[in-house]
C-alpha cells in the first residue's frame, strides 16, 4: 500500500515538475523577429537646445505600468532621457498605491534632483508632496493627471480629453456629411464613467456632434479593458441594428471592441478609436475593417516632459518661442490619425 502510494506520489510529483518546466518555458514573450521600432518616442533637442548643457538629474515617478498607455509613458521617459548625454534619470518603480508614490517622491526629493517629473496616480492625493518639492527648490513637471494647485508644479503637460471628444465628433460629423447621411446613428463606447477624463471626452464628443446638428445615439461605458470593451460592444451592437459611426474612447479596450464587431459580422459603419495605439494605427493603415481613424492622446507626452524638465533645469526656453522660459502649461493636441496621415504617426503609436 505504502509502496504504491509512494510510487504514485513520485509519478505525480515528477509529472507536476515536468509540466511546471514546460509551462515556465511558455512565459517568454520575446518575439522571433523583434520589430525595428521598439515603440519608444524620442525627440532630439532643436537648435541651441540640442547642445549638451549643465548635467541634469531628473527624478521620475509614475503609476504601475499595468496597461499599455502607462507602460509606454515610462518607456518613453526612459528613452528620451537616454537621448540626452547631459541627463540622468532616476525612475522609481511604478505604483498604484498613493501612499507609496508619496513616499517615493519624498525619497526622490531627499536625493535633491534638479527637476522632478511626476505622473501622479491621483493628482489630488499627490498635490501636497508636489508643493513640498517646489518648496525645496526642485521644479516639478506635472505629467497629465493634474495637481490640485498650481503651487505644486512648475509646468504641467498633458493631454486634452475634451479635445479628444471634439476631434472624434468633428471627424465623424464630416464623414457623415460627406456621405450624405442626414440623421446618422452614432454610437459611443466610453471608458469608466465615474472618471472625470471619461466625462470630459464624452462631453467634447457630444458638443462637437451637436455643433454639427447630430447627437449621440446608443452609448455604453466599458472599463478600459479588452474584456469589458468586448462585452459592452456586443450588447451595444444588439441594441443598434444599424449604426453609421462608432467612437471608442480607448484603443486598449478597442481590441475587444473590434473583436465584438467581428463576432457580430458587422461592417456597415465607420469606427474611430482613441489614444493612438500602434495596433490601431496598423489597422487604419491596412484599411481592411471598420476602424478608419483614431484621435490621439499620446504617451509621447512623457518624452516631452523629460525634455521640458531638462530645459527648466538648464534655465533654457523653448526653441521657437520668444519667452526665455518654458511655459507653465502645455496641452497636447488631439490630432485625428487617418489612412492619409498615419505614416507620420506610426512612430508614436504605443504597444497596447
Amino acid at each position, binding site marked *: 500500500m505504502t509502496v504504491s502510494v509512494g510510487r504514485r506520489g513520485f509519478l505525480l510529483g515528477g509529472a507536476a515538475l515536468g509540466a511546471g518546466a514546460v*509551462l515556465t518555458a*511558455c512565459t517568454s514573450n520575446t518575439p522571433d523577429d523583434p520589430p525595428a521600432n521598439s515603440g519608444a518616442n524620442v525627440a532630439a533637442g532643436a537648435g541651441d537646445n540640442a547642445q549638451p548643457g549643465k548635467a541634469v538629474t531628473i527624478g521620475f515617478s509614475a503609476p504601475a505600468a499595468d496597461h499599455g498607455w502607462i507602460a509606454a509613458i515610462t518607456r518613453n521617459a526612459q528613452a528620451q532621457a537616454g537621448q540626452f548625454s547631459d541627463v540622468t534619470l532616476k525612475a522609481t518603480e511604478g505604483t498604484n498605491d498613493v501612499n507609496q508614490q508619496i513616499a517615493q517622491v519624498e525619497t526622490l526629493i531627499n536625493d535633491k534632483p534638479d527637476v522632478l517629473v511626476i505622473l501622479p496616480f491621483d493628482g489630488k492625493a499627490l498635490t501636497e508632496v508636489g508643493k513640498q518639492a517646489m518648496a525645496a527648490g526642485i521644479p516639478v513637471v506635472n505629467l497629465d493627471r493634474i495637481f490640485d494647485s498650481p503651487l505644486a508644479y512648475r509646468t504641467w503637460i498633458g493631454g486634452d480629453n475634451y479635445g479628444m471628444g471634439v476631434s472624434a465628433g468633428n471627424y465623424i460629423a464630416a464623414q457623415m456629411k460627406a456621405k450624405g447621411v442626414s440623421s446618422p446613428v452614432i454610437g459611443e463606447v466610453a471608458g469608466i464613467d465615474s472618471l472625470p477624463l471619461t466625462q470630459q471626452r464624452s462631453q467634447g464628443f457630444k458638443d462637437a456632434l451637436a455643433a454639427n446638428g447630430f447627437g449621440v445615439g446608443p452609448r455604453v461605458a466599458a472599463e478600459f479593458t*479588452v474584456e469589458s470593451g468586448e462585452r459592452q460592444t456586443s450588447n451595444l451592437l*444588439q441594441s443598434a441594428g444599424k449604426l453609421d459611426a462608432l467612437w471608442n474612447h480607448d484603443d486598449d479596450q478597442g481590441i475587444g471592441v473590434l473583436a465584438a464587431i467581428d463576432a457580430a459580422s458587422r461592417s456597415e459603419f465607420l469606427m474611430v478609436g482613441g489614444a493612438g495605439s500602434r495596433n490601431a494605427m496598423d489597422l487604419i493603415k491596412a484599411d481592411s475593417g471598420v476602424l478608419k481613424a483614431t484621435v490621439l492622446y499620446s504617451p509621447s507626452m512623457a518624452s516631452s516632459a523629460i525634455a521640458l524638465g531638462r530645459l527648466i533645469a538648464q534655465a533654457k526656453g523653448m526653441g521657437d518661442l520668444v519667452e526665455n522660459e518654458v511655459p507653465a502649461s502645455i496641452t497636447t493636441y488631439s490630432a485625428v490619425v487617418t489612412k492619409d496621415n498615419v505614416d507620420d504617426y506610426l512612430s508614436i503609436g504605443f504597444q497596447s
Partner: protein
Amino acid sequence: MSADTSAQPGAPSVSEAPARPAETQRDKALRLFSVDARMLALLGVLVAICVVGYITRPDAFLTQSNISTMLRLAAAIGVVSVGMTFVIIGGGIDLSVGSMVALCSVWMTTLATQSYGPVVMIVCAVAVGAGCGLVNGVLIAYGRVVPFIATLAMYVSARGLAERISNGQTQVVRETGFTSPLRGSLIGVPVLIWIFAAVVLVGWIVLQRTTFGRRTLAVGGNPEAARLAGIDVRRHTTLLYIIAGVCCGIAAIMVVARTTSGASTNGQLYELDAIAAVVIGGTLLAGGRGSLIGTLIGVLIFTAVGNVFTLNNLETDIQNIAKGAIIVVAVLFQSLRFRRGRTGATGSG
C-alpha cells in the same frame, strides 16, 4: 477513487449510508420542495427580466443573435461560477478566480505559447488554472490557512504574475488555428456556448450523480462528520480548489477567444460576479447545500440585466444598482426559506 478508503478502522462504508437516510426520510420531501420553490422564484426573476426586455425592445431582445450574444457573454463567467459552486458547497470560498482567469489568459497567449499552436495554448490555460487551484487547495487543506486569506493571497499574486509575464500589455492572438474554431459556430450555435453547456452538464452530473458530489456536500456540511465517515477531507478540499482552477482555465480560453487577446486586466471582479451568481442561485455561503442549476440561472439573470439595460441605452450606474437589488432580494428570500426549512427539520442535528 471512492470506496477504497474503508481502511479506516471500524468505519466501513456504513457510516456514509445510514446517517443520511435517517435524516433524508423526514427532510427530503421538504428540502426538495424548498429547493424547487426557490428555483421557481429564480426562474420567475429571469422571466420577468426577459419580459421587460421584450416589452421595451420587441425588435431586438428575442432575436436569435441577441440570445446567442447573451449566452456567449455568460459563458466565461458561467464556467467560473460552476467551479465556484463546487468550492462554496464544499465549505470554502475562492476569491482568486478573476486573477486566475487573467493569469491563464496571459500565460496561454505569450508569444512562446502561441508558437506551439492552439492545442498547447488550451492545455497551458487549463494546466495553469489547475496549478493555481492546487496551490490554493494545499494551502487551505494541508496548510490550514483560512480559504478567505489563502485565495486572497492568490488573488493578489496571480494578477501580479500576469502583469509581470505580459509586461502590462495586451497580447493579441495571431494564431488563427485557435481563434477561428473557437469564435465559430457549430450547428448555428457559437462554440463557446457549447463548451459552456458541456461544463454545466458535467458539473451537474458530478455534483448530483456521483460519490464525489455527495462527498462535496458532506465535506461542506460538516467536515468533522465527513472525516469520521471516512472521507479524506483534505484531499477532497484540494480537489475542489483544483476544479475551480480548471474552470478558470476554461473561462480564460473563452475570454481569449472572445477578445482575441490575453491581458492581465481580464477577469476583473469575476470573483464577485461568480459569488453573487452562486449565492442568488440558492447555494449556502456556509457550504453543505447548493445547486448548480441555481447558479446557472443566477449567471443568466445578471447577463440578461446587463443586456436589457444596454438595449435601452441606460447607464451602467443604474445597472449596478439593479444588480445589487437583485442580490439582496434573492438572498433575503433564501434566508427566509432556510429558516423555515430549519424549523421544519427540528431534531435532526
